[in-house]
């Protein structure tokens, strides 16, 4: 155990713990990628990590800057074309966990990465859904990880890029989905799981030192807490060292100065 860690590190490590050795995980870039690789480098060495660039069973030594970095391919069991990735591997039901981030999230796990504001006259045009709409519907279950902010965790998202539990209850089944949808949310403050009936995200565990007020202050909806909110175990020395080594290797690899002159 270590007491010297950031909320970000706690978030990534808590997320990594949710992954199992036999999971097949479709990995989003950013926090999901770090969590998945920490899992692979600690308790889940055999986990299969898939990036939407077509790399299956990849084991990068540094975190990729993009979903198509060369090392993902070089270390993969196989690299397939993108149409095959979406048809045979995602739509084919081979992915057990889809791991997503979000720009905006609501309490039912619906995600917006499309626009802030109106779709036709957006205040901020975000990158868009990419693979997420079908990751959200075709993966066995969905884990979401994001830092808590009032702008990010909102009562009503501006656009439903990826469907979570809709308005809760059996909304997924009504749309014909047979997958579980969001079953886990890991923020920098807490671990959340959907209520079995309403599907509203409920805090089941808070990270060491975090209070209910902290969680509510950075969340745009009225937070539900479980009857017995646990304390998330602090990162172990191994988890923390693994994550920090990974980040250090990544920083060194990505920030080598450019000498190309094109941007001079």
């Amino acid at each position, binding site marked *: 155990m270590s007491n010297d860690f950031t909320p970000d590190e706690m978030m990534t490590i808590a997320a990594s713990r949710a992954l199992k050795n036999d999971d097949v995980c479709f990995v989003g870039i950013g926090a999901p990628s770090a969590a998945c690789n920490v899992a692979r480098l600690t308790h889940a060495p055999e986990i299969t990590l898939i990036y*939407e660039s077509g790399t299956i069973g990849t084991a990068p030594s540094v975190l990729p*800057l993009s979903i198509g970095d*060369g090392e993902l391919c070089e270390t993969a069991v196989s690299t397939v074309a993108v149409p095959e990735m*979406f048809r045979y591997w995602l739509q084919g039901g081979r992915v057990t966990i889809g791991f997503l981030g979000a720009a905006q999230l609501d309490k039912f796990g619906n995600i917006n990465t499309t626009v802030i504001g109106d779709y036709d006259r957006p*205040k901020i045009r975000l990158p*868009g859904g990419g693979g997420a709409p079908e990751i959200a*519907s075709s993966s066995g279950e969905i884990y979401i990880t994001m830092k808590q902010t009032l702008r990010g965790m909102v009562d009503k998202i501006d656009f439903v890029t990826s469907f979570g539990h809709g308005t809760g209850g059996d909304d997924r089944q009504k749309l014909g989905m047979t997958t579980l949808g969001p079953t886990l949310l890991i923020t920098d403050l807490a671990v959340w799981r959907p209520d079995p009936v309403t599907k509203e995200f409920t805090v089941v565990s808070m990270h060491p030192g975090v209070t209910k007020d902290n969680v509510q202050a950075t969340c745009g909806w009225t937070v539900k807490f479980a009857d017995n909110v646990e304390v998330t175990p602090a990162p172990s020395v191994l988890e923390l060292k693994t994550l920090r080594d990974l980040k250090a290797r990544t920083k060194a690899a990505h920030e080598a100065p450019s000498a190309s002159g094109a941007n001079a």
Partner: protein
Amino acid sequence: MAKFLSIRDAVANNLKHGDSVAFEGFTHLIPHAAAHEVIRQGFKDLTVMRMTPDIIYDQLIGMGMVKKMIFSFAGNPGVGLLRRVRDAVENQWPHALEVEEHSHAAMANAYEAGAAGLPCAVFRGYLGAELAKVNANIKSIICPFTGEKLAAVPALRPDVTFIHAQKADRKGNVLIEGILGVQKEAVLAAKRAVITVEEVVDDLDTHTNACILPHWTIAAICVVPGGAHPSYASGYYDRDNVNYIEWDAIAADREKFLAWMDKHVLKAPPEIFAERVRHLRASA
């Protein structure tokens, strides 16, 4: 039948104002040199498509060449948003940009359908997703055996597809290795395909089931070493990550962007790409 041409001639012979164009690549093998030549030749009213429009789409759009963009994820990969795309969508600068937005699954299936000569792609998608409400090209069909409602989108059939590949043999057969993206489909879906390559070799020296585009599927092949910079070409040079990070600041400001484009694109010859990747070759 593939002709070996300079990138100048290949662009001039195959693209015209108002065409629909794909510059495909999935982080790997982005056809930067081809896009810069298109920008230099000053085409107008293009409909551009790509699953992952990135810097070159920021450049094409910022230079006012694009009427419409069909896409599924518009970002500076690993860095953030595309500033010129945002400026066009949010502020109509330099003019309004029509967007047709899809998911990756839809775009990948739509190129596949284009390559397969079908009018539409059918897949399980857009369940509960709001894009289906803002994009009239997202429809559905009913499976005649199970009654399941499946998503349907029109096939993508660009007038011209540009890609960058590792190498061609002397007959014009082209090899792609590593992260393949949707390039094979984008080439086979297109009316005309223009491919820049790192080199031409006597023998592709590859395996039986490699991703090869036969010469008779290609309109023109252009030898442009470094033509994917700042993206990478597996086996040739690494990704120039810093360049992507620096782009964010360049693209954030209209004047800075225009000055950069003038110096590094409008006044630069295609041969400059070989120079840009020189320092990235050692480690590749």
